[in-house]
């Protein structure tokens, strides 16, 4: 699974990014650059799907891919697929990673997961007369949420447990045996304690990383199905109540955008917010990425925009340096980034595969 994801990433970035870029994508770094990459390279699905990933784990996988002759790194540290790698990429079973929607779900997933784990533990223990147990999720908001659910179903816990069982059973039947197994073994309830990542990895013969990703994938799958058919899954729907899609823009960028809408110039915002020019520019690119109706015309003329776009198309690259040189340095990097960010909303290929 992890290998398939990495091959997909490398395939999409086409030797225009380093391993660090992929690392930031998977761990969900909230920076303009990373979000821009996620969108620009149609890798939104993988954004933040492995927040606890450590750099050495990723390096280890890349070393393996390199040893297998699937990827190569050029002198600028950019990675790309070899012929063998390309073949491996073609062989990936697309359905295995089809449900990842990281950019939308990366903030919702951990909350949903905690709620579900604690809800299952609590309700199944209670219906089976185990009133004294130590909650496996140790965080106050989740605990008070579960308490609320418990209070509103008092007296009907038996049927509640049956329905939740049913909902999960139905949904898991739509996943592979392996995913369903990893998911159900992680659950704690009715006096049975769930397994750790380590144990799941030993039991299923998967790497620790794959265990993590299979679980994430199931969670994204559940989220999608539940949101699609809320009336078929009433209890799981309750588990996502109050959890909105991730706001795609960082708070800081949002404030910059607010001043721009008020008609302030970059210099004025710099003074007001005591930020560097480059930071403000990053914010604007970020805003352009996520807000389709943000007009960038005051930063670069319409003609400029179309020149940049046609150069991008003829060079078949998103690498700023090449575009910049191709236009004889007529436009700043900021103008190029802003244009690319703004226009990805309207391009045909800007949609994610996931």
């Amino acid at each position, binding site marked *: 699974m992890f290998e398939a994801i990495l091959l997909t990433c490398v395939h999409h970035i086409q030797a225009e990014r380093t391993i660090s870029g992929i690392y930031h994508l998977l761990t969900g770094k909230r920076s303009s650059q990373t979000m821009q990459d996620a969108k620009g390279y149609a890798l939104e699905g993988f954004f933040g799907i492995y927040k*606890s990933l450590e750099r050495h784990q990723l390096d280890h996988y890349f070393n393996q891919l390199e040893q297998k002759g699937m990827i190569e790194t050029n002198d600028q540290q950019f990675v790309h697929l070899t012929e063998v790698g390309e073949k491996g990429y073609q062989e990936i079973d697309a359905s295995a990673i089809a449900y990842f929607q990281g950019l939308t779900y990366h903030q919702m997933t951990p909350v949903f997961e905690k709620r579900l*784990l604690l809800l*299952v533990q609590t309700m*199944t223990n209670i*219906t*089976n007369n*185990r009133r*004294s*147990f*130590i*909650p*496996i*999720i*140790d965080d*106050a908001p989740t605990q008070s949420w579960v308490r609320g659910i418990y209070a509103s179903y008092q007296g009907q816990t038996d049927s509640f*447990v*049956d329905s*939740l*069982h049913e909902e*999960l*059973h139905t949904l*898991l039947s739509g996943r592979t*045996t392996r995913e*369903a*197994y990893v*998911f*159900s*073994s992680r*659950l*704690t*309830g*009715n*006096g*049975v*304690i*769930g*397994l*750790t*990542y*380590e*144990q799941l990895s*030993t*039991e299923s013969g998967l790497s620790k990383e794959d265990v993590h990703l299979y679980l994430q994938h199931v969670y994204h799958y559940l989220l999608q199905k539940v949101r699609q058919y809320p009336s078929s899954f009433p209890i799981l729907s309750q588990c996502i109540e109050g959890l909105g899609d991730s706001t795609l823009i960082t708070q800081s960028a949002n404030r910059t955008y607010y001043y721009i809408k008020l008609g302030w110039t970059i210099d004025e915002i710099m003074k007001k917010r005591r930020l560097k020019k480059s930071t403000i520019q990053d914010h604007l690119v970020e805003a352009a990425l996520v807000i389709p109706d943000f007009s960038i015309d005051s930063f670069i003329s319409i003609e400029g925009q179309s020149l940049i776009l046609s150069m991008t198309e003829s060079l078949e690259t998103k690498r700023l340096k090449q575009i910049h040189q191709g236009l004889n340095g007529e436009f700043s990097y900021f103008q190029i980034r802003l244009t690319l960010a703004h226009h990805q909303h309207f391009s045909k290929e800007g949609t994610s595969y996931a």
Partner: protein
Amino acid sequence: MHDLTHYLEQTFGYSTFREGQRTIIEDVLRGDDVLGILPTGTGKSLCYQLPAQIQEGITVVVSPLISLMIDQVKQLKSQGYKSVIALNSFMDREQRMNAMKNVTRYKLIYVSPEMLQNDWLIERLQQATVDLFVIDEAHCISQWGHEFRTDYLKLHRVIHQLGDPTVLALSATATPEVQEDIKEKLNRPEMKQLIYPMDKPNISFAVRHVSSPGEKVKQIKQVIAKNDAPTMIYFSSRQWAERVAAELQQIGTRRVAFYHGGMEQTDRMLVQQQFMNDQLDVICCTSAFGMGVDKKNIRLVIHYHFPAQLESFIQEVGRAGRDGHPCVSLVLHTAKDHLLPQMLIESEVPEKADVNHILSHINGYRSSNEPLPEDELVRERLRLSESQWNFIKYQLEERGVIDGREVINKPDHPHVVRDIIQVVQERWHYKQSKLKEMIDWIHHTECRREALYRPFQDEVRTPIVACCDACSFDIDALELSTQKKKSSTRTWEERLALVFGRGGNHETSSRNHPTNER
């Protein structure tokens, strides 16, 4: 007088007190300051949980072990004891502010010593009545206090600020010398001492001298092959705990996991509860495990690494056999094993030769009229470990050289230098002598039980099991077994049904409730 048994029954569901509990509770309710020495697993915490429930005012419990206090709060809550909270640095800012604002609403407040340095919290507590001030793990004042737990040494001031409530100091292991030290540091020489024996009549001791770490693993494999019973194996390093756990998993007949402070929070919780729930047979752990875990049927405690003092060793073997049934302690030892605790000590106490250099560096800030930078930065510049720097900082504070971040007096004044060098040396000798006691015990050739418990109590009881390898105990002849729960690989649907308690063959035959330490 209150009907204590009634409260005991009502709140905790027990019908009788254990040894020592009633006397301590009665004394505390009468307003007497008490120093209670009760062995691990005999229900120290009940000695303040019950008074907290009975008394009008607040009971404050200082504990250095955050995981322990969080576990206790969880356990109390699971028993329906709601007005309890743990204030500690693990809470995020908002949670902490909220809890502190409403602090007077609680009856039982667990707090880490560093939180008590927060003036606002003290002010909040002053607005209520604190009836009882409890110091858990009171030996920290003496054993570690000089270095890491500088906050513990300031407790007497906090107690005074809170209107001098009744003080209850509790510890599982304190020699007479440490007991005196506790009373002195708390400024309560009149404290009543209630000391209960810590020897375990149901444990047998053995030490195995082997030639290499590999030999240790071999020994462990042999022992657990013959003894199918809940086992803890102690390590001083996380890497070793993981490595040996992996080797033991290879055997395939035992369910083995590791546990240490570096694990992800949920996984930590899962391993702990699996062990409690008999889903695991063997746990390879560091000392981070076991605080507040009250598993009654641990049969075997193996030390792959031994701790740096007997007190820790006694606590760790104290986790075995809390159900009163026979249990065993096995220490595995190679000739090089003293090096690891030696290194640990070196990282805790600064070296004598460094003192001059450290002090003149600090003088540099005074000369240039600068405040001390962040602790981390100072440590980095001086290449000191956290505890080494805390030690020096505390010594300088005590001598009026620094106040907060200000260097107010000359740190390299000859008598300051001399004093600090002397303290460093004393500390060093103290730690070395503690380690030597531990090593001597390992090489002891006469009765181990006598040698282990004698420094702490006058009488050592006759054991109900074979005593030790110097007396009549032969670990090779040991064959323990416990009834096992069957576990078999199932399909995901069976596993799901099991968790939901809907059909499927049930894994747990007996219902195992995590119970509170009484």
